[in-house]
């Protein structure tokens, strides 16, 4: 008898995702061999510094990356490959089954349509509700995301809302079609800290109430510690480490993850200079043949520069792409 806890099947399964720009001769690979899974009801954090390919990965999932960029690999959404769907089918998935919210609530709402119109529009596109029901549902949604006096504010234009309210409105629009997966691209970066916290709590509450999964892209490890179940760390377009948040935070198994965690200021500690990772992330045009982190890595050995290390499982649902993961774990 198998006594291991039953792991639910992933609803989203990404395998070998690759996004490349440029000509085939001078190819710039922005995202390469990215694998990850999202299970029902789970919050997956996608972390990495600017340019690590996390936002691009998110956009590639919904086929929003347009030519001349080339996307290949597999994005299995409940068994169907999004990258190979017909355009009509993709449109049903986009906004209907998978919704997305953006970093800039200031500009992601259409300035000439009222908030209510924008919510109703999504309901019209993705549900069978009639006019009156759409209006009632729109008010309900605004209320759900915590906009006070939703009924009075529903015909307001986006410019009449504050930054936090706009982000709430954007979430309301995204949730109108009751998606099973919410992709959040740095949803709190443009907001101040107290509002950030409210929005994250809101996303978590909605995840529970609506039983959806969330992929949260962020470069803020504090946000991840607070909200995510599992974490995928990206570096230079590849997955460095992937696993449960608590495990990774306690014992990182990739030299880059360790560097990231060490550079987070900790409360209560003595005041001392922030440690940072020496060097710069490599440019897209100029990647070393081996592990992209090797030039900055304190654990580097000769093997690191031969070929990019594959993502290997070192524990159930915990993988790392680091040759030196044992050394890293001993730190």
């Amino acid at each position: 008898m198998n006594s291991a806890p039953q792991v639910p099947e992933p609803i989203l399964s990404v395998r070998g995702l690759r996004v490349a720009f440029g000509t085939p001769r001078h190819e710039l690979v922005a995202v390469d061999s990215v694998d990850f899974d999202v299970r029902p009801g789970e919050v997956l954090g996608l972390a990495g510094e600017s340019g690590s390919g996390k936002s691009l990965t998110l956009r590639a999932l919904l086929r929003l990356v347009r030519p001349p960029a080339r996307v290949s690999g597999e994005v299995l959404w409940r068994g169907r490959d999004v990258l190979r769907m017909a355009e009509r089918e993709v449109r049903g998935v986009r906004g209907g089954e998978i919704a997305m919210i953006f970093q800039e609530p200031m500009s992601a709402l259409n300035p000439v349509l009222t908030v209510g119109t924008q919510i109703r529009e999504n309901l019209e596109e993705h549900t069978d509700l009639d006019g009156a029901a759409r209006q009632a549902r729109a008010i309900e949604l605004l209320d759900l995301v915590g906009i006070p006096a939703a009924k009075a504010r529903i015909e307001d234009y986006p410019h009449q809302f504050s930054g936090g309210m706009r982000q709430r409105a954007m979430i309301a629009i995204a949730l109108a079609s009751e998606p099973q997966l919410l992709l959040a691209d740095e949803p709190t970066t443009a907001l101040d800290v107290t509002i950030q916290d409210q929005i994250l709590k809101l996303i978590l509450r909605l995840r529970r109430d609506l039983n959806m999964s969330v992929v949260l892209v962020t470069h803020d490890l504090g946000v991840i510690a607070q909200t995510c179940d599992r974490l995928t760390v990206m570096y230079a377009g590849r997955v460095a480490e992937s696993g449960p948040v608590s495990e990774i935070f306690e014992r990182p198994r990739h030299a880059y993850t360790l560097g990231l965690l060490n550079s987070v200021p900790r409360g209560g500690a003595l005041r001392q200079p922030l440690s940072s990772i020496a060097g710069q992330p490599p440019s897209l045009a100029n990647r070393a043949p081996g592990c992209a982190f090797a030039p900055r890595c304190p654990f580097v050995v000769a093997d690191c520069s031969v070929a990019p290390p594959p993502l290997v499982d070192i524990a159930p649902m915990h993988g790392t792409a680091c040759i030196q993961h044992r050394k890293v774990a001993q730190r």
Partner: protein
Amino acid sequence: MTFATLTSGTIGRAIGPRWTLVVGATMLGLLIVIAIAPGVFSPYDPLAFDYQAIMQPPSAAHWFGTDNFGRDILSRTIWATRIDIQIAVFSTAFPLVFGTIVGTLTGYYGGWLDAIFGRLVDLVITFPFLVIVIAIVAVLGPGLFNMYIAVSAIGWVFYAQLVRAEIRVQKQSDYAAAARVLGYGEMRLIFRHLLPNAITPAIVYWMTDMALAILLGSSLGYLGLGAQPPTAEWGVIIAEGKNFMSTAWWISVFPGIAIVLAGVSFSMVGDGLADLFRRRR
């Protein structure tokens, strides 16, 4: 009283900072009312000769005086309003609609469609506007209808340019990406989300263009290529009076003032709208 004191006074507060729009729209409204029902306002038949009253200066009986056939200039100017407003609307309606559609599609899709459009624009702007219009009218024959054809054939290019540039900007915006993410179709994205955000400059230009169309209509009327005598049209009336400028200035001056007023009111509405749209951003 200057405008500064006016706008800071009670009336100024009442109509707010949008006084250009309010004043312009009022004047324009008046012109439109006159254009719809010139008969109500004009004291005489604009085409009726009166040999008892030839070349009379402005008086109580004829406020704007009479011309060399004794026709009442006030009545002719009033009836001309109908023709000139019609010129303003008819020679800009097609360019506005067609230019907006072409600009939207070329701006959104780019590619070979855009390349062809670009060359066409180059071709059109190489020639002075008035020269091509006169050339086309000369080929088709004088008259208002041919003038509409000539102006429409050329004028849409400018609207298309404006809308194209704006669509290219809006296409990159976050809300456009958001609309795509929501799974909306391309036509919905283009016409419901992008176009309303991109059309502002075209609407503002439309107002100026109507003023220019009246000037053009009057110029062509003056040259004998537009409205044909004895039709009362401002340019035609001015042309009729040009030989008598030293003895009967009123024949040309009053329709001239009407052109200025119409031009100013369109421009003020255009300015006011531009201002209003900027504020809403």
